[in-house]
């Protein structure tokens, strides 16, 4: 039981980090990105390659992964953010599809369909992390760092400018804010943070392949943020909790595994529909029960 729970906790921690990173785009910058698994994957692959060929030091690998993924996010965002809202959604999906194909075909970097395996255990300050408990501590530490970063972001002038942009873009522009610049930076930050999740995943599972970084997972991440409530710190946590724990619950209730996948999706889908209709602010707004305000 304990190993199972530890595993669940670690995966939950990674999901929370990913959901938080996506929230920077969706909740703070108002960018409806359905391609976040690409940044997760990029972070995982870079960390994996670094660990395999240079050093298994966790902080170093993660840093490298963050820089690379942040740069990738920036480069993708530059052309894509210039398009209108509706197009951005589709562009993001399009980019995800292209990226998935790249993950599969670029054997040199990603190991193709087979992926990269045999990733050495993470080293923190010289110590090799082997046990799940150790990885849990590492995950929690990373989550804490991410939380601090997010709190700092929200309280900074940058965070306020983003909020103003979401609230009334025209007024924000009149007061000197640059929407594209702000969104570019937010996307870069979100991408870099996703790389943390990717790195944790790569070291913990010691194996990465394209199947973990598909459109389906991007959609799941988006669902976490939306169901939990975008734009808040607690929302993504609730969303990640719900989506990570729910399948485990279904398992417990002995729902047959052939039916598990679709049933999960149906529940998520229904939740998204109902929430968007009646509680667009997500689960986190359950206390308020306000009608959704126009963006």
């Amino acid at each position, binding site marked *: 039981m304990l190993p199972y729970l530890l595993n669940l906790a670690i995966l939950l921690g990674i999901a929370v980090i990913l959901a938080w990173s996506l929230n920077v785009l969706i909740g703070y910058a108002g960018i409806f990105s359905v391609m976040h698994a690409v940044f997760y994957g990029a972070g995982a692959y870079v960390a994996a390659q670094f660990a395999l060929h240079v050093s298994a030091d966790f902080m170093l690998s993660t840093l490298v992964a963050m820089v690379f993924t942040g740069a990738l996010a920036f480069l993708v965002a530059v052309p894509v953010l210039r398009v209108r809202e509706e197009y951005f959604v589709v562009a993001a999906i399009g980019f995800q599809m292209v990226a998935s194909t790249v993950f599969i075909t670029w054997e040199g970097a990603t190991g193709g369909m087979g992926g990269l395996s045999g990733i050495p255990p993470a080293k923190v300050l010289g110590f090799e992390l082997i046990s799940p408990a150790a990885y849990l501590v590492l995950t929690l530490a990373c989550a804490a760092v991410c939380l601090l970063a997010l709190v700092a972001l929200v309280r900074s*002038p940058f965070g306020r400018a983003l909020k103003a942009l979401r609230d009334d873009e025209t007024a924000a*522009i009149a*007061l*000197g804010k640059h929407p594209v610049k702000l969104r570019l930076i937010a996307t870069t930050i979100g991408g870099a943070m996703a790389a943390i999740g990717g790195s944790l995943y790569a070291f913990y599972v010691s194996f990465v392949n394209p199947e973990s970084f598909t459109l389906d997972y991007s959609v799941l991440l988006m669902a976490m943020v939306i169901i939990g409530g975008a734009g808040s710190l607690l929302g993504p946590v609730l969303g990640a909790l719900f989506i990570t724990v729910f399948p485990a619950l279904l398992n417990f209730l002995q729902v047959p595994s052939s039916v598990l996948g679709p049933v999960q999706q149906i529940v998520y889908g229904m939740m998204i529909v109902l929430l968007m209709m009646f509680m667009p602010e997500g689960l986190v707004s359950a206390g308020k029960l306000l009608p959704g305000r126009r963006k």
Partner: protein
Amino acid sequence: MSLGLNEVYKSFGGNQVIDGVTLEIEDGKVTSLVGPNGAGKTTLFNLVTGFVAVDRGTIRFAGRNLGGLSPQAVKRHGLVRTFQNLRLFLDMTVLENVRVALESDLSMNFWSRRNLAQVEKVLRRVGLWEQRQKMAGELSYAERKFLSLARVLATGAPCLLLDEPAAGLDGPSLRLFHELIREFKNGGGTVLLIEHNLDIVRDVSDRIVFLDKGRIAAAGTPEEIFSNPVLGELYFGIRVAAATAGEAGNAAR
């Protein structure tokens, strides 16, 4: 530091909304832009502040050409505007609304004492300091109008373009508004004001400009304008005789 428009033209889909406007807004003075709905007043604001590009003509401020600049750049050059429908950040507090106006968006400077001092000064002056933690969406109508004003005052910009800033304000609020404008003007600031309320226009302006169908129909001091029977009739629909008596009464208020 004056704001000058020279032979500005703008049309939208075949409609000549601004039809050759040449205007000099004097420094340190309050100029009111009046005219019927659809005369092009807000379009003029949009042209000056970079939200819309001119078809022909130039707009200069403090010796620099504002043509082709983005609204953000225009703000950097010292002109800020308000909106007729306010456009407050309703999901942010009063304090945050003003902070956002002052701050540079890239600064990671969380806690600039100077910024906060400036914010406090402005909020106290407009009487919103006590409500600084309230959401802008929870404010009363008059409070919202003053928050809109506070935002632009806080930026420290020397030139304000205010779109119907006093509409719907009464008695004490109106007096506060006059005081704020007068203070700003006395500090060397320039104000261009769109307003429909004639009492406000008369009391606050140093100069009045009439815009009609995209052209300047008349311009002058309040005395010149209001004592001109033709203009009075045409634009205000007042009969001069009755008006004189009425104005005397209003002036006494």
